[in-house]
């Protein structure tokens, strides 16, 4: 049985929402790149929609991280070591916070370029510099760009779980499942967001069946990782910390939000409906928000249960 005497770092709301938005941003980029690289030309509207979502979800991330610091104006110390005599880049591959700071920066470049590329392709931006930047996201180099961004997106969506585990906190450090769990739930949240956004872009609904099937798979993965998470905590003897009241209520809500996706409740409505898109629109109005709330609740249960 693991015994912990570490103090809580007081990572609360800012960090909770950072984890949530980083997951959405990384996950949306993964979906966008999958649709572009492996989908059909008709998947392009959904792909661009996901690139937009990835960029917009990324915007609050640095803000949340910076305001959470005790000294916000020193945010750049994450990247530059200012120790006298040792001034230079600060990178520690064994510290997920250090790797994450660099990963977020590089991913930010990818998300921004792909966002501008999507705007150019949609004829919503036509200036010279924009066309140049958008050009990066086109052709064979664009494919490479999208693939590299996909890998970075997976990292940004999942490393936050590893960051928690690489500590001496109860719950967080007693499991190795958090990175995978956060990644699976981030992908699930990104699908939910994209399904909801297809309400505003008709042709993006071409990819709905992919999204519904993807959601089912991501949520099966998420459920399996929740089970792994609990098993590892039982082994460590700290399951009662993570699953005690009031956190048990949050966990119950998380599991309930997985049921429609795993049983493809929304998907069956899509297929059963004789009027196709109308059913999609109706099914996509509420369920995505429930899934998004579930993903937020999962992170809240993990973050808060260990500290309070």
């Amino acid at each position: 049985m693991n015994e912990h005497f570490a103090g809580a770092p007081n990572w609360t709301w800012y960090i909770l929402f950072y984890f949530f938005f980083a997951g959405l941003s990384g996950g949306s980029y993964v979906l966008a790149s999958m649709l572009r690289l492996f989908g059909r030309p008709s998947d392009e509207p959904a792909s661009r929609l996901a690139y937009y979502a990835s960029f917009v979800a990324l915007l609050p991330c640095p803000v949340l991280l910076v305001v959470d610091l005790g000294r916000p104006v020193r945010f750049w110390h994450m990247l530059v070591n200012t120790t006298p005599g040792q001034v230079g880049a600060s990178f520690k591959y064994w510290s997920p916070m250090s790797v994450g700071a660099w990963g977020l920066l590089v991913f930010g470049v990818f998300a921004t370029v792909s966002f501008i590329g999507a705007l150019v392709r949609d004829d919503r931006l036509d200036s010279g510099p924009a066309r140049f930047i958008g050009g990066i996201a086109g052709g064979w180099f664009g494919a490479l760009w999208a693939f590299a961004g996909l890998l970075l997106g997976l990292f940004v969506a999942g490393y936050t779980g590893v960051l928690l585990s690489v500590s001496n906190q109860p719950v967080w450090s007693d499991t190795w499942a958090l990175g995978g769990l956060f990644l699976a739930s981030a992908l699930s949240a990104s699908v939910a967001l994209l399904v909801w956004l297809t309400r505003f872009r008709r042709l993006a609904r071409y990819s709905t069946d992919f999204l519904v099937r993807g959601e089912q798979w991501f949520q099966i993965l998420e459920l399996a990782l929740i089970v792994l998470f609990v098993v590892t905590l039982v082994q460590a003897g700290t399951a009662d910390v993570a699953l005690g009241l009031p956190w048990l209520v949050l966990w119950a809500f998380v599991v309930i939000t997985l049921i429609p996706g795993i049983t493809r409740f929304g998907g069956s409505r899509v297929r059963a409906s004789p009027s196709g898109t109308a059913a999609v629109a109706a099914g996509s109005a509420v369920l995505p928000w429930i899934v998004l709330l579930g993903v937020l609740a999962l992170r809240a249960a993990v973050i808060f249960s260990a500290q309070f």
Partner: protein
Amino acid sequence: MVEIKPGTAYGFFTDTSVCIGCKACEVACKAWNELPGNEPVFGDGYDNTGSLDSQNWRHVSFVDNVADAAASPGQGTAWLMMSDVCKHCTHASCMEVCPTGAIIRTEFDTVFIQPDVCNGCRDCIAACPFDVIGLDKNSGVAQKCTLCYSRLQGGLEPACAKACPTQSIQFGPVIELRQTAQKRVDALHATGVSQAQLYGADDSVYGGLNAFFLLMDEPEKYNLPNAKNAVLPSRNNKFGYLTTLVTGALAVLGGLIALRRRRPPEATAAAPAAPREGRPDGE
């Protein structure tokens, strides 16, 4: 008087068997380091400091170990008092995770948080297994015992050790302190105090602690992890990333299968394939 030279490892040997809980160490620490006072904590015991944090770099913890029915004189274990402090670990968890490089090992082999480099991310607080570090609300940076770095640089021993009236806190080169500690624990064992034990004097806890202890009970009684639980945060890097990697691979694989098996909805399937360029949906 200990001669203090850069390049030598210095530390504390805190002998809890002679601690009387006077808190002179706490006062001396606050006085030298100009740490603010804090609202006293009034609980069940005599401890009104609470815990180590950004403004309490020494904390005399009181462990009430009095049995319900007194069966023996106590053998010095009825009240356990320990002047707790940063352990200045050889393998320091805080130093390991710090993303800014603010936590360094000094020329005296102590662990020091540079206040002008730290940005208050608090990763070190999550990592420290002893709950030593706190975030200072005024400066916004993490703070803890510096082993009186400024005094060492001036050839002076740390304030707490100088103030301790019972020599419960002894300062000196770590090698010499370990010999002193071994003699002391041997003497206690010889007089029948078999529960006396050294904590952190060997490398079983974080490769050895520069500030180590003679305890009168099991480490857990003093809120100290035993050797089995004294583990570094980086232990979870490998399997943490591996799980993420496997999940990512499975997710992408599942996504590819979903792309191959999916069926386009009726209405949009009838629409012509969207071109790669331009506005495909005319919205």
